[in-house]
């Protein structure tokens, strides 16, 4: 065990319910080992708060190893904190100096309303996915997984886009609260694969529609999403989404022209 124990001043957003007006509260957290993770530090603080009969700070977390996308908050003005290609749970207190003031805020977007403290409602992402982020498959006999030939570079690129964990850091970091990187990555991963070609035009139209309906902002190509993405997904996904949208509009095989209206 390290003897180097550190003290921090936390400035955290507290909001009891979606309806209530929130505000920042200050908490002194002393005796923290630098090997403590950021979320463990919040756990320690919460233990102390509970003992003092104060409502603990609500935050999302699940796997705590950077693969589930549940955690996420703005730490000192940066989505997922100071480290690149890392989630909030992968931040350790050694990233902060002894005596530092750490400001913690929830993701801010109209489409991500605050539920409580640092917890936001990201179901808008789910609705974008259900609008078109899937493929149709035959439900009969199991097909051989390798029956369809896919060029290795396409498979690799699709996989890079598919690493998106839907944490929402792209929206949080974007000055316009745009969900273009998330939506772009989801569209691109299907577009590159032969299995995704069937619903290609309808998919991009429906997913972009849903993205706009949820109240996300537009993309001004600032690139802050790419820098904040814990998986390092490239903004080339956004360019792909735009190219797909243009192609779909020109092809005429879009949702609005479909006679049955079904996908």
């Amino acid at each position, binding site marked *: 065990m390290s003897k180097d124990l550190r003290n921090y001043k936390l400035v955290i957003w507290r909001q009891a319910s979606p309806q209530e007006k929130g505000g920042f509260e200050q908490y002194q957290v002393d005796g923290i080992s630098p090997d403590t993770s950021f979320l463990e530090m919040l756990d320690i603080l919460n233990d102390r708060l509970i003992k003092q009969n104060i409502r603990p700070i609500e935050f999302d977390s699940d796997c705590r190893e950077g693969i589930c996308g549940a955690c996420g908050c703005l730490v000192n003005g940066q989505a997922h904190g100071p480290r690149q290609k890392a989630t909030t749970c992968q931040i350790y207190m050694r990233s902060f100096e002894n005596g530092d003031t750490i400001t913690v805020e929830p993701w801010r977007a109209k489409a991500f309303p605050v539920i409580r403290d640092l917890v936001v409602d990201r179901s808008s992402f789910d609705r974008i996915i259900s609008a078109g982020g899937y493929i149709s498959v035959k439900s009969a006999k199991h097909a051989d997984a390798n029956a369809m030939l896919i060029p290795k570079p396409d498979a690799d690129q699709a996989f890079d886009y598919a690493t998106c964990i839907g944490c929402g850091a792209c929206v949080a970091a974007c000055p316009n609260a745009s969900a273009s990187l998330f939506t772009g990555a989801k569209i691109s991963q299907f577009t590159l694969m032969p299995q995704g070609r069937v619903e290609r035009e309808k998919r991009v139209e429906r997913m972009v529609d849903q993205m706009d309906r949820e109240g996300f902002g537009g993309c001004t190509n600032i690139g802050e999403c790419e*820098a904040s993405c814990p998986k390092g997904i490239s903004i080339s996904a956004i360019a792909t989404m735009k190219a797909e949208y243009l192609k779909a509009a020109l092809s005429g095989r879009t949702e609005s022209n479909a006679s049955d209206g079904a996908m």
Partner: protein
Amino acid sequence: MLTVRKALTSTVGRKFIMGASGLLLVGFLFVHIATNLLLYAKTGESFNAAVARLWSLGSLVYLLELGLAALFASHIVVAITLKRGHREARPDSYRMSVSKGTVHNNPASRNMAVTGIILLVFLILHILQFRFGPGISEGYSVVINGKTERDLYRVVTEAFKNPIYVALYVAVMLFLGSHLRHGFWSAFQSLGVLAPRISKVIYALGFCLAFVLAAAFLFIPIWIYFDLGAGL
């Protein structure tokens, strides 16, 4: 057709309009500077001749002006609707916001609306000053090939003997450079034609283009004010 309506309303579609109109306006700037480079000549003959040649197109000039006005209008109107959407998308701002480090997040990219508004105000002033400025009836005339033409060269050189106009034009051209620095690359990204391989090339090209265009326009008032052409 519904797809056209969508292209005009979706965030993605509106960025197509921004990108396409922006690139066409860059094309216009090249045509503009091609003529303006003649202002660097020792006398106004070649510049006035070029202006006269343009006006010899007759009513086609008005058609071109109308097209140009439509380009500017679409670029500006769509930008306003997009900007409003961006603001609505984040009603509560952050207490702290720090970049995580990306080349595209810079003062040029963050202030496109500000530089755009400055350019719009400048554009109005610029058109009033030169397009609708003094002409033949005010005595600004010159005879080219036996025909009386407007002496636009004199209008320009007289304007740039005023240090206030020189300072204003130089400053605005810096904002133009800033607007193009992000805008050129951003247009390609918005039109979805950027593969990661060429993205960096286009971004670098955007810098060169912004630099060259801004510099070429920027030195005209300085050139005229200090009469640097006299030494040629």
